[in-house]
């Protein structure tokens, strides 16, 4: 079991190396897309932590993501033009998410509500927040200069009397003692700082969470997942362990939400929505909740598949001599992929889950742990070939697949 865990860590390193090179090798667009996969991955990891770690399914983990994003946005919009940095916004977003998770967690776990209801309660929470956020379109919904904006999302209200235009949520901006001017983490043609920020935070949170899982809190949580009454009879106040882990997972989701708002410089009620909540569950289920890496892998797979399906046009040309049945099938195939990519995504997901019910990462790590010799000799070149192909494809149009 320890071996499987170290295989996971090595795989994370193998994935990290090409990710470090992404801004050099690709156009800013790719860095931008990968950053959002990592942000979703972070959110999925927080769900994996509480779901895989303690067996508590938080369907509405997005509630904490959204609160983090909205709080960061509201504070950031108000302070950025005054202080030129977002320190307070970062702290405020994190605190808001952690506080919400702590309150909800307290009622769920100390209120003796069965864990089965955790998914329903958190889903209700995120949907209530969705309904609320949608209803904030009116002029009266302002926090300082931050307009909540209902469906259209949050923005900063410029004062027309002073000729200041509306403005967006600021990127993560630091102005620490010793710095001559503030530094903003952006992702564009000039700078990949925003990408490295997301990558750095992801790595740091992954490492910290890994340590957490191996601490007493993590060990007892896993034991609770296995048999809660047994763990209580050993002297552990299981409510506290669940509460603590849930709050930490909420804070991580909030952190991801802040990165999201800073990355897109935007947040709207969709982050609280059912579709996003379900996607997050799908990332974890697909990637595998037994490892913390699973959420990242699931988010990347779904993200990739989505953008791939948006580009491909299967059976674009139907041979003129094809019979009516073949023509019909090809035509149907094309229309399904073009017009209902979600159907294809769903089918892939169901297929994977039916074959690998624990997701894609556990069997991978098991193979790597058992066959250490050739396992790595297979994985490393595979990652390099894939990476090299993507580079050649994007920079020189040398696409094989």
């Amino acid at each position, binding site marked *: 079991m320890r071996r499987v865990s170290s295989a996971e860590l090595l795989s994370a390193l193998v994935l990290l190396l090409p990710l470090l090179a992404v801004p050099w090798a690709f156009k800013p667009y790719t860095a931008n897309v990968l950053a959002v996969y990592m942000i979703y991955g972070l959110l999925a990891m927080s769900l994996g932590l509480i779901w895989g770690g303690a067996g508590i399914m938080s369907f509405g983990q997005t509630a904490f993501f959204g609160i983090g994003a909205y709080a960061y946005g509201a504070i950031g919009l108000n302070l950025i033009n005054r202080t030129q940095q977002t320190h307070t916004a970062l702290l405020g977003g994190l605190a808001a998410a952690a506080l919400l998770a702590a309150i909800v967690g307290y009622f769920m776990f100390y209120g003796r509500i069965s864990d089965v209801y955790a998914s329903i309660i958190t889903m209700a929470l995120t949907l209530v927040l969705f309904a609320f956020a949608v209803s904030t379109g009116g002029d009266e919904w302002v926090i300082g200069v931050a307009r909540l904006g209902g469906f259209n999302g949050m923005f900063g209200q410029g004062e027309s009397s002073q000729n200041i235009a509306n403005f967006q949520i600021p990127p993560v901006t630091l102005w620490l003692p010793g710095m001559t001017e503030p530094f903003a983490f952006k992702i564009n043609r000039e700078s990949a700082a925003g990408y490295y920020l997301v990558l750095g935070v992801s790595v740091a949170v992954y490492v910290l969470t890994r340590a957490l899982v191996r601490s007493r809190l993590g*060990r007892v949580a896993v034991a609770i997942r*296995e048999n809660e*009454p047994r763990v*209580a*009879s050993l002297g552990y*106040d299981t409510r506290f362990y669940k509460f603590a882990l849930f709050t930490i997972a909420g804070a991580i989701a909030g952190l991801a939400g802040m990165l999201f708002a800073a990355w897109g410089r935007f947040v709207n009620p969709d982050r609280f929505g059912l579709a996003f909540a379900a996607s997050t569950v799908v990332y974890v289920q697909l990637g595998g909740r037994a490892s913390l890496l699973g959420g990242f892998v699931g988010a990347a797979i779904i993200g990739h598949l989505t953008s791939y399906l948006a580009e491909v046009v299967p059976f674009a040309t139907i041979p003129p001599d094809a019979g009516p049945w073949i023509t019909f099938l090809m035509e149907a195939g094309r229309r399904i992929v073009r017009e209902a990519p979600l159907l294809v995504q769903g089918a892939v997901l169901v297929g994977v889950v039916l074959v690998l019910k624990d997701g894609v990462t556990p069997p991978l790590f098991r193979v790597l742990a058992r066959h250490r010799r050739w396992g790595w000799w297979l994985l490393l070149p595979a990652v390099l070939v894939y990476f090299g192909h993507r580079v050649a494809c994007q920079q020189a149009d040398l696409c094989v697949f």
Partner: protein
Amino acid sequence: MPEPILEVSGLTKQFGGLRAVHLDLTIDAGELRCLIGPNGAGKSTFFRILSGGMRPDAGTVRFRGRDITGWDAFRVARLGMSIKFQVPSVLEELSVFENLHVAAEFRFGNRGGRRRAAEMLEVIGLTERADHPATWLSHGEKQWLEVGMASVGEPTLVLLDEPTAGMTVEEVKKTVRLLRRLNETATVIVVEHDMNFIRMIARRVTVMHQGEVFAEGSMEEIERNEGVRDIYLGKGAHYAVRR
């Protein structure tokens, strides 16, 4: 004059019209008490109430001089009572070592817990299987692991619900040795159906019937008791068949 460690008075649990438990009982410190009784006598329910897994309808439980009636399970455990449930409840996906470590960590911390867990592995004879998931263990091995988990935290009172269920004769002998050893430092109450096991332990026996204490005494006295034979030993053939 030994001190009572557990005093149960008027303890009652009702399931609808069925009075599953209704008894008074005193256990002295250092005892190894056997609790027997036919199926449905209320032994497991009694244990569940003692260990905080279920609230009684009436009556009190005093443990180490404190009224623990209605306490949460974890608080009872912290006061030094541990239990092995009748249904196997090892932490299946965790390794054998991790099972013991979680049980020991509460009292002795991470490091100390590791040491105690390793020692306990020796005692229950599962050192070779330390890294196997508990779910791979045989039925008998799981029972020993549970006995180990119940005793690694150095409790003052250990409740064991059918620790030899499904064991071979050799395995039962080993369990008896384990129990004797455990009894050197802790008071033990053990529920068993296996009369050979009870005879091997040969201590004070309490017979439960329909939720109440029906008889109490040495094994010889119990075996001579006509009433007990009627409700329980008279069905000995039945048990012999079942095992």
